[in-house]
């Protein structure tokens, strides 16, 4: 019951987050210097520019435009993109699916890399393997995503191990569903790896500290006293106890991954939400920026919600502690 109320409250918070982020995006882009007509301004007469601004609603007061947009947005109608002359919702639908494919893959990769390495460095901190892992984690955290993505693209181009970018090849794009899926699977490792590396490093660091704390707990010592090996005690007891802080940051990781990384998507030509938002921002495409921000915030909120639910399931005290 407490868990249900807790999750309901979190869902309410998620909706509020989406509303605030999308509204703030719209208002900030509208207030920023320049508008959607700027790129072509030198090719337009003053009258033509005024006409285009009026068509886009940029001559209206900010409040009137915002109220109009918000009243439609609650019905998931985010308006018409200035840039593409298409409904924002259609564009979001196309791109959100692609970002979800990339983000899921990156999440799996980050988990598969980060958690085992975290357990290793947390439980056996004095080994050479742990030292090397910690150094690599630091490196992965320090390298900007732009550099990591470019390095991977270069590596792919030089070796031919992976496609250098894009989501599908032309042949697969017009083939069967199975062919499409296998083609996407061939394309996804490069951007997923570029995206996953810093998150894998974060997970490794958090998992490592949590395991290090857990192995010092009395129940682990008791388990060892009952005759379990150190490895078994870590696997059966310490790891489970260390999950709480790790699940705590999963929400943020899921949200960050699913809201789209424009740098990785631009460099690897992945047709996702991040790239759409980047294009929209550059073109001052007001409604498209607000729409992509709303979708990103929704993913972030959903990620947090999933992480909270997992946390509540793994440790029911969480919901009780957070109930007023």
């Amino acid at each position, binding site marked *: 019951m407490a868990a249900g109320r807790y999750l309901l409250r979190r869902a309410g918070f998620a909706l509020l987050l989406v509303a605030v982020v999308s509204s703030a995006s719209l208002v900030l882009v509208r207030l920023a210097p320049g508008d959607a007509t*700027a790129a072509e301004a030198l090719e337009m*007469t003053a009258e033509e520019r005024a006409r285009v601004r009026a068509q886009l609603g940029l001559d209206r007061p900010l409040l009137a435009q915002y109220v109009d947009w918000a009243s439609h947005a609650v019905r998931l109608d985010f308006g018409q993109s200035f840039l593409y002359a298409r409904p924002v919702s259609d564009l979001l639908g196309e791109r959100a699916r692609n970002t979800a494919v990339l983000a899921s893959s990156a999440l799996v990769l980050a988990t598969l890399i980060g958690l085992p390495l975290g357990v290793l460095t947390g439980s056996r901190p004095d080994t050479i393997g742990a030292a090397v892992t910690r150094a690599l984690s630091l490196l992965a955290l320090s390298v900007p995503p732009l550099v990591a993505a470019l390095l991977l693209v270069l590596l792919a181009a030089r070796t031919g191990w992976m496609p250098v970018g894009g989501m599908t090849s032309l042949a697969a794009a017009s083939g069967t569903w199975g062919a499409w899926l296998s083609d996407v699977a061939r*394309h996804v490792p490069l951007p997923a790896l570029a995206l996953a590396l810093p998150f894998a490093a974060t997970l490794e660091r958090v998992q490592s500290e949590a395991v290090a704390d857990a192995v010092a707990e009395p129940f682990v010592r008791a388990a060892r006293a009952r005759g379990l090996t150190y490895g078994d005690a870590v696997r059966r007891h310490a790891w489970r106890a260390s999950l709480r802080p790790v699940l705590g940051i999963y929400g943020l990781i899921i949200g960050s991954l699913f809201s789209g990384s424009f740098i990785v998507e631009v460099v690897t030509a992945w047709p996702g939400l991040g790239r759409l938002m980047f294009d929209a921002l550059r073109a001052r495409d007001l409604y498209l920026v607000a729409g992509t921000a709303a979708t990103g915030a929704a993913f972030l909120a959903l990620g947090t919600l999933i992480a909270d639910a997992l946390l509540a399931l793994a440790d029911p005290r969480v919901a009780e502690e957070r109930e007023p």
Partner: protein
Amino acid sequence: MTPAPPAADRLGAPPAPVRGGTLTSSIRSEVRSYNRISARDYPTELLATLTLGRLVRVNRATHDVEPWLAESWTTSADALTYTFTLRDGVTWNDGTPFTSADVAFSFQAVYDPSAKSVLRNSLLVGGQPLRIDTPDPHTVVVTFAEPFGPGVRLLDNLTIMPRHKLEAALAGGTFADAWSAATPPADLAAIGPFQLARYDPGQRIVLDRNPRYWRTDERGEALPYLDRLVLEIVPDQDAELVRLQSGQIDLTQQQLRAADVATLRPLVTQGRLQLLEIGVANDVDHFFFNLRPAQWARDPRRAWLPRREFRQAISHAVDREAYADTVFLGEAVPIHGPITPGNRLWFWPGIPRYEFSRDKARALLAGLGLQNRDADEWLEDERGTEARFSLITVRGNTQLERGAAVVRDELRQIGVAMDIVPLEANALIKRMLDGQFEAIFFVFGATDLDPALSPDLWLSSGSAHVWNIGQRTPATDWEARIDALMAEQARATDLAERQRLFREVQRIFSEELPMIHFAAARLYMGVSARVFNLSPGFARPHLLWSADTISVTPAGPATSQ
């Protein structure tokens, strides 16, 4: 496997272009629309070039006007009326005959306010629309309101749209939204060498050969040679270069950056790439001050900052050779006006020049009362106001930022301080349009190489007359004189007379220096060695403007991954 002939051999007319194959190019941005009359972004323009047609076209390699969908035309004695004869047997890709009704419809769409045409201003003569008559399905009569120097060259601006597909949209007032990027290929029509096969948003645009394309080569073989043309959407320039190096694309739409030219040279030596020099760029970096009188009315620097001698001093103070070497790594030529040697017909080698001379610069500044009156390195006027101004440029544009730094260092040598303020492009444009700046360093291109077709820069009322934009009446005598000369040269029909008048415009411009120019880049394109029969052009699309005659060797196609 046929070995690829040496790159240099392929730039002429190869003996036998090969029919078939796929050419893969990159493109930086997404297509917004297939409706060229209502959208002016580059992908829309490129797709119009590839799938649609014009009555006449300007050959991007020779600069000449050549017949296209119209096979010939005659001009009336008063040079006001042009009678075009359309080609026989031309059809749209769905089999509908192409007739004069399509031409009349396209003009109607251009001038109809509901169509929100972006081509309207480029198809006015003397501020008036052209009159179009279609006495029969194969004849179009175009009448100008007054004599117009560029003549039929003007019609290169008009993309012909299919009446049978878009007539209902124009009648219903929905033309501006017609042919959006979401339109299925079956709902479009093509008359150019290619037809849209599919568009995967964010990934690629695929064009297949139009089997009903009207053009043949000199052997009578149907064009285009290529079976398929793929435009891979690659937004990042570095990633684009990697794809070109690895052979996954055959060419790019954008010219190479100076640093990339050096990177690609080893691949040229290995015979994997061709490096095509297109010529000197026509789009140059413009350095200009705000010359709106209101800007300086209450400014303590009003006695010298808006004066032409100050601008002349800056022009003398910059070593253009060194500028070209530093900013463009040597791949540039010094220039002294906005018309570069790339514009063969209108470039004037005799334009007055400001040779590099710090002494002359200092003398001009001294004439304005600017002297070093204290212990620091900067000049001051009689009131003690320092010779200092701010320059806005585009954040993240390496060429502009590097260029601004060179100018700042040169001005420092003559005691003038310049503070560089990098802004995001949209913010810069807003300040430029609103007149909220002291000086700006920015790149933008002329609408057309013919000055009569790019009046927006030259005329005081023009939208690109950026130092004092959109004046109701000329603010200065010299701007009034340029307005008059431009009007006269636009009306003149004799090319030599037009060139004489435009030289006078350039002379005044050079004397008053509302804009200062330092160097123009030499343009290079990197192209896979498997591509031949190329005809590099002076304007975008530099290579695909003649896509119907491009051919590829059958072996080793670029793979679209």
